[in-house]
């Protein structure tokens, strides 16, 4: 048995860093805190890589399957004998993979932020929040039980809230952070209810017990409970609701585009590479239950994923804020991952989708982080978020340009970049399971290529714009992460995921199916071609198209008015039709009743106060009469 005890430092280090920077950073070393935070994270990254190496290449396998290893575990809060929240670290293929993803991207973002955030007010605050986020995210992926996951789930929510609202004096940032928190909180409510139902039926929170395919937990709760679905299905649907919220799937996606108000490195780290895939990770973590005990819930996952990916891709084609385009593209790609999980089965070749999803999660983290950091470099150079105010930047920003192009090719699924491999696996999995979903994803692949290259062409090519200040390339702290991630995009496609990360830990034989791969590359190229025609040649086609599909375009541009719908629900229903009446009711009914009782008492006393005339002799008369009457009563009547 290999000793993984040191993994506790993967938790503790960022937490200590957060406390340290948060409490002392402001006063004592505001300048140094960035370096300090980055160094801390570098240590964690090294530890994670060591863990990954030890886990994948030196740990024992049983039946050719990777085992789930509990590195450490202690009881944090005891509810009942069986139900207790533990804090610990569970190592299995997906959690180790997530370790790599999180620490790599996080380290890159830390280094990048050293340059990007330089001179910002609250520099040390930024790094302490980043540390908090790293802590929470690592805790989330290493969770040994579902409640630990929920704890860190909430913590990443808060870190996200704090980081989106980093520019707290900007009203839009404040609004966005509030929105993100409340929307995900609402989704977490579902997650919590799911946990409660699950715990009531299985009497355990522990992942290993829960997800043991032959264990009692999966066997239980398959009976019909409510509306024709089993208890397990309901609980899994509720749990998935949490994932929907965090991963910005339809209908809880509305917070993600607004979350782009945060600093760009934050968008890269949290809202592209790591936190938003937590939902995918959650489903993957609970996958045996979904696959074996709640197939209906898994179908829900698939359809939500598919719809979200299409929905987001359509919106992405119309947006002009580059970060928003990327946000919708994130949503679309996560939809892919969800879909892949949704069409997968447990074990064997059925598990292709699961592997594909994890694979795509990995590659997506690389290329999306790269895209966002690239976008950050662009924004840094031109001080604007809008594509319309950019053009011809390839001359000014050569490194950014190349790396951005690599990222765009990766997301468009052009070989030999990594996106091709992972996307291909997903399409293959969908093809074997559900042809409709396959068709949808196929279309989304084309749309993805189109909107990414629309972005790419209109920013780096196209018309030349007279900038107030000549845009200049970002400093080395910002370009090095770009290059590292670009290399990651190139090589990560060749990682043998089918050997490492599979649904049951065993090796999954899969090959690139040319019948699916070639058309998908073709449609990617088609999308790029259309984008080239429309945005490099400066044709009038886009405007014409927009004019032709006037209403469709308008709806997509306005994100199908989902925001307005939410606004209506919250502002009108919650505030106007629930809260205000409740407050009114409280003041004018409940409180008024109490005041009314007091008023009646006062009124009655006002009426009878005349008895207290101050006339001594009246009192005496009443007293004596009363005494006599009492005497009569007691002597003669009380027998």
């Amino acid at each position, binding site marked *: 048995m290999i000793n993984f005890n040191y993994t506790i430092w993967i938790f503790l280090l960022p937490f200590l860093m957060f406390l340290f920077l948060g409490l002392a950073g402001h006063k004592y070393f505001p300048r140094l805190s960035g370096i300090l935070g980055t160094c801390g994270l570098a240590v964690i990254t090294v530890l994670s890589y060591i863990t990954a190496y030890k886990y994948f290449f030196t740990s024992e396998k049983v039946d050719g399957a990777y085992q789930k290893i509990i590195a450490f575990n202690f009881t944090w809060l005891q509810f009942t004998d069986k139900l207790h929240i533990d804090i610990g670290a569970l190592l299995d293929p997906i959690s180790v993979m997530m370790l790599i993803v999180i620490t790599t991207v996080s380290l890159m973002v830390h280094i990048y932020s050293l340059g990007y955030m330089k001179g910002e007010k609250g520099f040390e605050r930024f790094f302490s929040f980043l540390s908090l986020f790293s802590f929470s995210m690592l805790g989330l992926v290493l969770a040994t039980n579902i409640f630990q996951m929920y704890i860190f789930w909430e913590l990443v929510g*808060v870190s996200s809230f704090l980081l989106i609202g980093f520019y707290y004096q900007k009203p839009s940032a404040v609004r966005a952070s*509030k929105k993100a928190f409340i929307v995900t*909180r609402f989704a*977490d409510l579902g997650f919590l209810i799911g946990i409660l139902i699950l715990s009531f039926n299985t009497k355990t929170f522990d992942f290993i017990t829960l997800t043991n395919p032959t264990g009692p937990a999966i066997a239980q709760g398959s009976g019909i409970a409510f509306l024709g679905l089993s208890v397990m299905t309901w609980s899994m649907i509720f749990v998935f609701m949490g994932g929907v919220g965090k991963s910005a799937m339809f209908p809880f996606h509305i917070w993600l585009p607004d979350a782009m108000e945060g600093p760009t490195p934050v968008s890269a780290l949290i809202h592209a590479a790591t936190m938003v895939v937590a939902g995918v990770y959650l489903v993957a973590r609970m996958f045996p239950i979904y696959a074996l005990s709640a197939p209906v819930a898994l179908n829900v996952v698939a359809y939500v994923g598919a719809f979200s990916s299409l929905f987001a891709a359509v919106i992405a084609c119309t947006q002009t804020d580059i970060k928003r385009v990327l946000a919708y593209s994130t949503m679309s790609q996560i939809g892919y991952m969800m879909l892949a999980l949704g069409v997968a089965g447990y074990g064997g070749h059925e598990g292709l989708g699961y592997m594909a999803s994890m694979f795509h999660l990995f590659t997506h983290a690389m290329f999306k982080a790269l895209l966002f950091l690239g976008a950050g470099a662009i924004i840094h150079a031109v001080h604007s978020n809008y594509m319309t105010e950019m053009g011809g930047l390839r001359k000014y920003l050569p490194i950014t340009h190349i790396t951005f192009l690599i990222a765009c090719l990766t997301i468009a699924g052009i070989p030999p970049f990594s996106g091709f491999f992972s996307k291909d696996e997903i399409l293959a999995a969908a093809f074997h399971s559900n042809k409709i979903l396959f068709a949808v994803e196929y279309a989304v692949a084309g749309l993805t290529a189109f909107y990414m290259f629309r972005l790419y062409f209109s920013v780096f090519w196209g018309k030349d714009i007279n900038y107030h200040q000549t845009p200049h390339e970002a400093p080395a702290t910002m370009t090095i992460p770009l290059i590292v991630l670009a290399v990651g995009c190139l090589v990560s496609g060749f990682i043998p995921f089918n050997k490492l990360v599979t649904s049951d830990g065993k090796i999954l034989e899969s090959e690139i199916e040319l019948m699916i791969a070639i058309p998908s590359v073709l449609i990617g190229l088609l999308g790029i071609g259309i984008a080239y025609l429309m945005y490099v040649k400066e044709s009038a086609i886009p405007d014409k198209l927009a004019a032709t599909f006037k209403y469709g375009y308008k709806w997509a541009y306005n994100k199908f008015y989902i925001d307005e719908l939410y606004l209506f629900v919250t502002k009108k229903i919650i505030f106007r039709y629930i809260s205000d009446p409740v407050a009114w009711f409280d003041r004018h009914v*409940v409180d008024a009743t*109490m005041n009314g009782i007091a008023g009646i008492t006062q009124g009655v006393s006002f009426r009878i106060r005349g008895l207290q005339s101050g006339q001594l002799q009246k009192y005496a008369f009443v007293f004596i009469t009363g005494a006599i009457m009492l005497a009569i009563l007691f002597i003669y009547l009380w027998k």
Partner: protein
Amino acid sequence: MDILSLFVVIPVLTITAILLLKDTRQVRLVSAFGMGLQLLMAASLVFLYLTARHAGNNDEMLFIKDYLWFKSLNIHYAVGVDGISVAMIMLTSLVVFAGIFASWEVEFLRKEFFISLILLASGVFGFFISIDLFTMFLFYELAVIPMYLLIGIWGTGPKEYSAMKLTLMLMGGSALLLVGLLGIYFNSSPDGNRLTFNILEISKVVIPLPDQRIFFPLTFVGFGVLGALFPFHTWSPDGHASAPTAVSMLHAGVLMKLGGYGAFRVAIFLMPEAAHELSWIFIILTSISIVYGAFGAIAQKDLKYINAYSSISHCGLVLFAVLMMNQTAMNGAIIQMISHGLMTALFFALIGMIYGRTHTRMIYEMGGLMKIVPFLSVCYVIAGLASLGLPGLSGFVAEMTIFVGAFQHPELFYRIVTILAVSSIVITAVYILRVIAILLLGPTTNEHFEHLPDAKWFEKISVVTLIGSVAAIGLAPFWLSTMIGTSLHPIIEKIIALNPF
């Protein structure tokens, strides 16, 4: 002198010392010293208690002392603590300690203010150490009277009205309570022995069910009024809004907990059968409290009102959990009492400090305070996050324990109601974030506020004490949970033994 009585004696001595002082500037130092001593005492009590438990003392109550007081009615001055009361005493001493520092700058009748405040505290301490119903009731009344003076004299706004309303409603509650207690007393000895007020002795007998049906609701509602049970909660918003800072802290932080504690220790512990039979009524009322308080808080514009409604919601959760009557939920209820006590005290302290600077509590008249008073604002954010149940702070621990416990209830009705209660976490998030966004974030809206000073040293002591405790519970809940859990064990066993469900 036994250690428990010291908790009443030290405040009395402090009051005497204050009375003897000529110089009013020393009053607060003496108070701080006395209450600091009390805090140390509480800490050492926790230590002693854990040592005794560790040494294998498995009595239901420890450190029992019993002095006959009124022979004819068999009233005793009887004290004793278990893990729950120890935790509540710790909470009280923390809040009082913070409260002294939060009222450091009271100028008007300073001596009398501190005397009333400490008198109030001694009533609360006495309540928690008593195991004699009558003594308990006496201390409870002792706590209510100074409250009237504190709000009526040092309050703001319509203070006379609020003080009157609060006192009258609480007195109304204690009238019901007294009837309930007497009902228990007269049923305390079915086989014709001497009647008793002692909780431990009463818990050994079974009060006849028809009597329980009468006296359980009376006792529960009596304590429920104090615990802001819907629809008897309306004293809370007005009272809290008018009260001076330290009093709001003590009142929301500790006095409202008397309700939950009493409901649990007296109503349910002594009359479990009726509690089982009637719990559905009160479960409905408390769930209304939870959701209704939270929705009410969304619509408020005054900081203190927001917090008062949020207290209604949170205290509703306490009573809700107590009524679930299983180990986990009750454990959660006690943790929630402590957690809510600390964080609401923190809220009121901060609101008081903000009000002391801006002279308004209307959220729309302020804005962007984060830039002006960063320390207070950060603390406010932490308090808010604790209130909405962020893991790592106490609120999460309490709420999750309650939800998990309540959801283990075997009857479907209770589980469905639990889901309703769970939904409060979203509404809580809405109103907390709304306040934070309007009050602290965004651009500064009022240029008069631009040069306000940040927290002074005594304010920092007050706030840091509370935040430290909130974080301590949130990060390491196991010891508190275990301490309460072991004490709950005999109680739960009694309840379950009598009512196999």
